[in-house]
């Protein structure tokens, strides 16, 4: 397994654990209404997603600066991974759009806190999808597509 592939695998596993941790904390602490009212709760979630994002960036970005571990084939795969990121981000925004429209259509307005949640989830989806994109790139190259 190439060093970048290994990092992407760790990144994906970390990303999935990170997402589950945020969702579990979010649900256990009371969900959207508590998040809207409790400043301390917002700080916990902020810490989780910003901290996770920093760890994630360290995991994937540092390897890109090591020429001995990343060669032209790895860079080619890395350059293609944004396609998967783009698809995942669009898909998550579509899910948000449909879910919020269906939930708040009758009320005629959406709580402002959802802006924060949409932005946070989009960043997380983008980060995790980068790892997935890299792994898919290696898999496709193995299949010689």
């Amino acid at each position, binding site marked *: 397994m190439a060093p970048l592939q290994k990092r992407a695998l760790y990144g994906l596993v970390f990303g999935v654990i990170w997402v589950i941790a945020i969702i579990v904390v979010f649900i256990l602490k009371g969900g959207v209404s508590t998040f809207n009212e409790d400043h301390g709760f917002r700080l916990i979630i902020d810490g989780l997603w910003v901290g996770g994002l920093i760890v994630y960036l360290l995991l994937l970005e540092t390897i890109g600066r090591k020429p001995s571990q990343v*060669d*032209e*084939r*790895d860079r080619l795969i890395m350059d293609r991974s944004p396609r998967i990121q783009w698809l995942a981000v669009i898909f998550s925004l579509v899910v948000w759009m449909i879910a919020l429209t269906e939930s708040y259509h009758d009320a005629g307005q959406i709580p402002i806190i959802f802006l924060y949640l949409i932005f946070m989830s989009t960043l997380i989806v983008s980060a995790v999808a980068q790892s997935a994109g890299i792994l898919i790139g290696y898999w496709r*190259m193995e299949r010689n597509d």
Partner: protein
Amino acid sequence: MTKINNRIRRLRFDYDEMTQEELANRVGCTRQTIIALEQGKYVPSLELAFKIARTFGVVVEDVFQYEGNK
């Protein structure tokens, strides 16, 4: 798909049974890329192709052969 064959594996053995790791270090890529090249799963850049050829002291055409439409 472009079909480019290569003789890297053969040349490695002719060249003092050079390991994939050694070749990778000499041309500046990872061992996994050498494996992918030997299995025909990756077509290298011109630069890498020239580096590999020079390592074995041959011309590029002696390492890579284009099997596309003639």
